């Protein structure tokens, strides 16, 4: 989509992006602007100050030779963005020039310069295949700036235009920056017009503006950045920094973009037992940070590791947990990191369905360079069946070799070739008409998680000394947090607690649970009742371990004892699976 920017001076300032409805190039051009335009409106009428890319002067607007695409043409981008009018079709492509050329400078000035009543509110205009999004901003008081938009891409563009507007407003108040730049632009335009009149050669005034006018160069840079990386970093008047990223460009997963709302939802669901995995190496990442960035961010980047959960990270980096969450979310949003479960022996990984396993893929080449003597497809084949990290490593191997295997796993995780499987438990009692006694013995629990019960403290040779299995909030005591249940045995207090916990179930469910042989043991029953609320299939084993301060073996034993009323399955964590599909 094209969006158009325009800035009105004196009476109003308006920033707009111009976008077209058609997707011309594959993969993501729907998220790139086609044009940046600056328009002013004031006492002396409407003027187009600047536009980029420049219009070709000798334009030929005849016969829009748009190739008709077959309605069944392969949609390689797989992009299912709906524009905010609900239109998600692939449009017949017109070239940039035809679309942009369709609008002369004068008409742009007229249609984009809005009255002051429209300022401070969202403004948008769609003409056939071209969409203009406006953000009128008053430069004189009252300063009302609002951004609201429909589609999330427009939202983001709007955000950017608002930020630039704020910066411009600030500089205007401080030193009339915008007025000066506008004067320059108009002056150059006048010059060029005069020149054209005298010697007859048509020229684009905007080309001349660029070298003379910093604001024009900034707008050009914003446009260029948005079209390529999706990351914009400007210094308005060489003073105020405006930075922005278009998540739609950064977070493209398997050909589809991750909507920012989904991203935000996932980020809100991060837990202290998750870990932050940087997608770049530490040095490269630090080099990209601005000079005045927060020291907390730097510390965090230096301290984070694939084996450390966020809580540990907070301790090691000497930061509050909340701060760590925020910085982590920030890094993820900017495409610099993803959220995983910290690496540990018992983690089970499997090949991601989105992984590119082609021998000709650039990933295969990179892998071969990074790990000479190994090839990616062979390595990936090992993860065809879920395999735990401990199985993947061979303890008889030399430690160097072991360390390399871990590095390979990290490499594959960074490129989202693997995802982790977790165990989920669900309470489902046999139906009413069946007598459990008449049924054959239930088949053994098909849990893929390996049989290792206690993980040894020094699980991973290159990382931290403890494995995630030993990660607990407080001391790893077996006594649980609820003080009331500390007294063992069949005390009336305990019995009542158990009854209360089981009260949320139906009578049938309760009976079925009590019929399980293990229910005769009050300890086991108590534990079961206490964990009941996790047995809805939404909490995985590691989460229960973390919340309840329990060991893996304890839980697995409990599940086994009560298997006639539980069903267990393994799959990826839907909360962080968003981050586990590969980028383009």
């Amino acid at each position, binding site marked *: 989509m094209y969006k158009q920017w325009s800035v009105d001076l004196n009476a109003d300032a308006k920033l707009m992006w111009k976008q077209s409805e058609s997707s011309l190039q594959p993969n993501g051009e729907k998220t790139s602007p086609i044009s940046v335009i600056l328009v002013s409106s004031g006492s002396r009428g409407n003027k187009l100050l600047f536009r980029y890319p420049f219009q070709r002067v000798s334009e030929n607007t005849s016969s829009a030779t748009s190739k008709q695409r077959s309605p069944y043409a392969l949609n390689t981008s797989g992009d299912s963005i709906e524009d905010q009018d609900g*239109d*998600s079709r692939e449009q017949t492509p017109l070239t940039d020039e035809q679309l942009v050329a369709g609008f002369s400078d004068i008409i742009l000035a007229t*249609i984009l310069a809005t009255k002051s009543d*429209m300022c401070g509110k969202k403004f948008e*205009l769609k003409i056939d295949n071209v969409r203009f999004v406006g953000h009128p901003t008053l430069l004189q008081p009252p300063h009302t700036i609002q951004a609201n938009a429909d589609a999330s891409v427009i939202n983001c563009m709007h955000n950017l235009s608002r930020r630039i507007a704020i910066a411009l407003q600030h500089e205007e108040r401080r030193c009339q920056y915008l007025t000066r730049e506008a004067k320059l632009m108009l002056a150059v335009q006048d010059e060029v017009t005069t020149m054209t009149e005298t010697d007859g050669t048509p020229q684009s005034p905007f080309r001349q503006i660029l070298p003379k006018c910093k604001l024009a160069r900034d707008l050009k840079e914003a446009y260029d950045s948005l079209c390529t990386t999706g990351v914009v970093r400007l210094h308005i008047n060489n003073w105020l920094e405006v930075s922005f990223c278009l998540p739609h460009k950064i977070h493209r997963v398997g050909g589809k973009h991750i909507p920012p709302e989904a991203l935000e939802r996932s980020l809100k669901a991060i837990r202290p037992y998750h870990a932050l995995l940087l997608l770049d190496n530490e040095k490269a990442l630090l080099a990209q940070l601005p000079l005045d960035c927060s020291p907390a961010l730097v510390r965090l980047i230096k301290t984070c590791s694939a084996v450390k959960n966020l809580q540990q990270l907070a301790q090691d980096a000497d930061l509050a947990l909340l701060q760590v969450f925020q910085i982590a979310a920030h890094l993820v949003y900017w495409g610099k990191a993803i959220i995983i479960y910290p690496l540990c022996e018992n983690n089970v990984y499997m090949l991601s369905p989105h992984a590119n396993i082609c021998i000709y893929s650039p990933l295969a080449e990179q892998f071969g360079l990074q790990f000479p003597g190994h090839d990616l497809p062979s390595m990936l084949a090992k993860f065809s069946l879920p395999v735990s990290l401990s199985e993947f490593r061979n303890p008889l191997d030399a430690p160097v070799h072991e360390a390399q295997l871990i590095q390979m796993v990290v490499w594959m995780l960074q490129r989202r070739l693997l995802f982790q499987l977790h165990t989920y438990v669900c309470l489902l009692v046999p139906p009413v008409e069946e007598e459990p006694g008449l049924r054959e013995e239930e088949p053994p629990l098909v849990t893929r998680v390996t049989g290792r019960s206690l993980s040894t403290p020094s699980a991973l040779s290159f990382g931290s000394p403890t494995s995630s299995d030993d990660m607990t909030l407080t001391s790893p005591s077996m006594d649980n947090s609820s003080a009331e249940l500390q007294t063992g045995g069949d005390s009336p207090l305990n019995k009542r607690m158990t009854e209360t916990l089981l009260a949320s179930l139906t009578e049938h469910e309760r009976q079925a649970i009590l019929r399980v042989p293990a229910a005769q043991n009050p300890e086991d029953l108590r534990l079961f009742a206490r964990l009941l609320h996790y047995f809805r299939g939404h909490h995985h084993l590691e989460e229960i371990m973390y919340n309840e301060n329990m060991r893996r073996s304890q839980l697995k034993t409990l599940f086994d004892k009560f298997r006639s009323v539980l069903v267990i399955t393994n*799959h990826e964590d839907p909360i962080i699976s968003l981050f586990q599909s590969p980028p383009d």
Partner: protein
Amino acid sequence: MGSYRRIDCIFFSEFHPTLGPKITYQVTYIRHEFFYVYIITKPELQNKLITVTAMEKKLIGCPVCIEHKKYSRNALLFNLGLVCDARTKTCALEPIVKKLSGYLTTLELESGFISNEESKQKLLPILSTLLEELNVTGACTLPIDDSNTIHLKLIEQRKDPLVVQEYDVPVFTKNKDHFIKSQWDLTTQQILPFVDGYRHIQKISAEADVELNLVRIAVQNLLYYEVVTLVSIFQYSNVYCTTPKVQNLIDKKCLQEECIHYVSKLGQRTNLRDVFQLYCGLTPGTTVRDLCSRYSHQLQRVDERKLIQFGLMKGLIRRLQKYPVKVVRDERSRPPRLYTGCHSYDEICCKTGMSYKELDERLENDPNIVVCWK
């Protein structure tokens, strides 16, 4: 029709020779001063569909200019537009506006409908009817005069459908019997008896005696209207695994009912626990055959083929496909064509005519080939 397409106002605007742009008729009131420049426009913008979003409203119009000496100022400028709430999904309304502007243009050229003050008055009741009927039923048929009738219908815009491969299996999302066959084209009618949720495209083409590409296009059409969805070929040697969506079976009562109804054998009724256990019994490394032997009790009342079908259709499970990759090769041999990691067993067998077993045997003995499942 859904309220999200609700039209708040329909207006008719024209350029009065002395008064300038004005809204001649409007059904329900809107503030229009701000929009004039987009309603009665400069020549460059004429005959273009213009959507303006401002002040929390969306205005869709198509300005028309008819040039003729007989008009004062030698041109007649008008615009019939709609106004909706800014959040409305309006793309279905755009063809309506364009069509209306076309109708009015025709009427004016044929009989001076608009320039004649008397006939122009008919516009007001016309606008009222349009507003009412489009909002309520999404369609409107309106006679204007003896020879002209307006036919309008709001058409839902849908996503472009996926490409259909020869090894894909189309399965009806709704009951096949609810289908009115005569509404569909001949090709579709011809292949319909063979769309049983088990036959793949290549097989349908062979058995229905319809050319492969025609079958693909017909099925793609059915996909577009969400009448069918695509699943993979069923074999007892297939491997599946659960997705996080399998928990929907626990969370959503209506899905439970639908599932039990769908997968139960004729005359029988299974229960949620059995079904859920079966789905959870599908794991990497487990074939459907394995499942049948391990869970024979649960399968007494469940049709395993329907179980898999339902699971795939609702995204509760996914198929793990095998991809052979030739990893070691000497410089002299040809580069692999099919064993690149891009083509699944399904695809290779379909293209080459080999059976899975044959392909397995061929590849098992080749030390240079690894197999990835995903």
